[in-house]
């Protein structure tokens, strides 16, 4: 018998191995009900203070806010139903995670909900939480998962035992699982800034510095497109670089009596880290730099893509006769004569060093005693439009952006070429015809800038955005240089964390009691089957009796 058995086994192994291998390979991939990308809430440390969500992994059952028990569950909320109280409620009940579902197209949402969410974003970040908070873009499958979860969550509280039993057989629970690892600090992140210059005609000329920070900020880094803040500022800066480089190389006008220094700073939304280090390096560690010599003024561009207001933010009102005062006067002249629909005013705010973060970028320069302004259409630095994920391309009005560009360009030209002193009237427009502000250029720049998220955590020194900006500046300016900022090892000013984008899987699951129910049903089925097989003889004899009379008749 054993020889037979061994022969049999040998045969079996020979043929079964290829079959089982094939089956194994085909079926090894696990299947999920739905797989989708989720974007985590910000997590960063700034000057020792921690902000945002601390955790990244989750493997919990889904519920909506209506459910009674939220602890250790993943709470799903839609933007339309989102409110701060619900969010607080979820956190207080020690929920396992929060997933906020945003519509694919923000413009379908009513304005008041969008506005309300924009105002809530800084509050969401301010409360440091260990609960992972994710944002997902809605699609059909996710919406159906949400509605199913909502139905089962809201019916949990009030139902009898029989209903619950029936419910378990038909309902679908969902288990949300992320595939990544726990979030940890990114070491040695380099924030890149770019500078370039246009040299004026002559020796020992004063310098005008034009600054704009190119990164964006929102409650989720991968969803911060920052169209108005500060995509508009970058677009204006690049367009000014193009116009003034033409003006400076134009034979008939010659270069002006000012040097122009253009600076695209990184880490702007994190308390202007790029600017801060650039100033330190240029003023403390270098022997000679344009910043050390005569600086006429620094003009920072921040959020200029919309509205008919224009504010010039200063930390010290400019003194009479100083270059800053000239700029102020020229701005007023240009606005009054050429764009009367624009409402321009100066806003004076003292630098408050006791605050966690500085208000505007010009304050960095003000601290180093360089005269500076910020130009913006926002009146207050606390405006929610500066830190929102809702700030997308539709937030920028192209005509207003190009009008603002023109105003700034005209003003700067009047200052550089001293036009008011020479008696040139305020109505004369310099940037017309061949030299005009090109709206198409602005539009394409803005479209490119808002095509991908520009959060500081995502823009490494090798990122394509930095390379493209450098290439663009190189096209029009001279001496384009990169400037890197790395956080100090022992006492870091800023710390970024990773795992900001994950793939979440939603698996359809049944509750535990369902398995027991099924086992019970299977046991009873098997019992019936056993009885049937035991009594198979009855069927056999019945058939025999049916057939035999016929045979007998033959």
């Amino acid at each position, binding site marked *: 018998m054993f020889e037979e058995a061994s022969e049999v086994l040998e045969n079996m192994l020979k043929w079964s191995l290829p*079959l089982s291998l094939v*089956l194994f390979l085909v079926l090894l991939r696990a299947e999920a009900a739905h797989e989708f990308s989720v974007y985590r809430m910000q997590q960063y440390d700034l000057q020792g203070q921690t902000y945002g969500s601390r955790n990244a992994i989750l493997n919990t059952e889904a519920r909506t806010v209506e459910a009674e028990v939220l602890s250790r569950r993943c709470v799903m909320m839609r933007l339309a139903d989102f409110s701060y109280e619900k969010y607080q409620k979820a956190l207080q009940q020690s929920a396992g995670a929060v997933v906020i579902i945003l519509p694919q197209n923000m413009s379908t949402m009513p304005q008041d909900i969008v506005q309300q969410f924009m105002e809530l974003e800084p509050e969401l970040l301010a409360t440091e939480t260990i609960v992972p908070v994710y944002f997902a873009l809605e699609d059909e499958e996710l919406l159906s998962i949400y509605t199913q979860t909502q139905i089962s969550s809201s019916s949990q509280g009030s139902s009898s035992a029989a209903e619950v039993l029936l419910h378990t057989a038909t309902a679908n629970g969902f288990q949300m699982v992320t595939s990544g690892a726990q979030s940890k600090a990114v070491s040695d992140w380099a924030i890149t800034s770019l500078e370039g210059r246009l040299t004026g005609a002559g020796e020992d000329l004063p310098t005008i510095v034009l600054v704009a920070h190119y990164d964006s900020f929102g409650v989720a880094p991968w969803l911060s497109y920052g169209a108005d803040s500060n995509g508009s500022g970058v677009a204006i800066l690049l367009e000014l670089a193009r116009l003034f480089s033409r003006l400076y190389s134009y034979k008939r006008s010659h270069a002006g009596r000012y040097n122009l220094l253009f600076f695209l700073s990184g880490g702007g939304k994190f308390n202007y880290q790029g600017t801060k280090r650039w100033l330190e390096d240029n003023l403390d560690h270098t022997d000679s730099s344009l910043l050390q010599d005569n600086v006429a003024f620094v003009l920072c561009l921040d959020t200029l893509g919309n509205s008919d207001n224009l504010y010039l933010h200063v930390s010290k009102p400019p003194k009479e006769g100083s270059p800053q005062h000239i700029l102020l006067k020229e701005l007023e002249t240009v606005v009054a004569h050429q764009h009367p629909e624009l409402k321009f005013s100066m806003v004076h705010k003292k630098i408050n060093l006791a605050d966690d973060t500085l208000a505007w970028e010009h304050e960095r320069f003000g601290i180093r005693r360089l005269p500076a302004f910020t130009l913006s259409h926002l009146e207050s630095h606390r405006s929610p439009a500066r830190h929102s994920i809702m700030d997308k391309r539709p937030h920028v009005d192209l005509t207003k952006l190009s009008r603002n560009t023109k105003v700034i360009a005209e003003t700067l030209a009047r200052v550089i070429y001293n036009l008011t002193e020479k008696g040139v009237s305020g109505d004369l427009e310099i940037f017309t015809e061949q030299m005009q502000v090109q709206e198409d250029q602005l539009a394409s720049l803005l479209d490119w800038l808002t095509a991908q998220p520009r959060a500081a955590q995502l823009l490494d020194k090798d990122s394509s955005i930095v390379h493209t900006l450098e290439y663009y500046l190189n096209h029009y300016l001279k001496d384009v240089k990169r400037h890197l900022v790395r956080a100090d090892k022992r006492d870091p000013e800023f710390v970024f964390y990773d795992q900001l984008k994950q793939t979440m899987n939603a698996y359809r699951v049944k509750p535990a009691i369902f398995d027991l129910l099924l086992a019970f049903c299977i046991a009873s089925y098997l019992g019936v089957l056993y009885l049937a097989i035991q009594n198979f003889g009855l069927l056999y004899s019945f058939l025999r009796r049916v*057939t035999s009379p016929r045979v007998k008749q033959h």
Partner: protein
Amino acid sequence: MTLFHFGNCVSLAYFPYFITYKCSGLSEYNAFWRCVQAGATYLFVQLCKMLFLATFFPTWEGAVGVYDFVGEFMKATVDLADLLGLHLVMSRNAGKGEYKIMVAAMGWATAELIMSRCIPFWVGARGIEFDWKYIQMSFDSNISLVHYIAMAAVVWMFTRYDLPKSFRLPVTILLGLCVYKGFLMELFVHVFLLGSWTALLVKAVLTGAISLCSLFLFVTLVHSN
């Protein structure tokens, strides 16, 4: 409790086989190794079928939704090899008709159960995701057991020398139905767009009908002498 679910599916699939083996009295005849031999023959026949299909049948390159009736029909014809395999197993076993049929069918069906169900259960039913298809697969394996018993009985009857003339036709028809049952099932699903549970029910009814007819013919044949 997904391991529990795996246990549920495996018990639902395997226990009927176990019960059948015990209650049909095969254990008294030391039929275990013979069943294993039948299983080995099953594997060999499946391999040959796969090679044949892969070599001679081109892949279907038509539209996605259209069902290739002729192609699938030809593929189902290759399942005639199953009949040959069963015949081979039965001819190597000496003994009464019922013994031969049961041994062949048990071994064949168990081999199919192990080969085609174990891995889906292990990988799928044990996962987090729940799907009704694993329970459906278990029911399907139960139905397959009945189907193979009926098929073995029909093959045995077909090869008997003392089969009456009047039985030739019904037996041949049943044989054809057995072979093309899979094809018929797919046809039904496509034409009537049946849901998975309905398809299972139809399959059970069809197999039940075939097995009842074959049982009737078997009883008549055996007890007409």
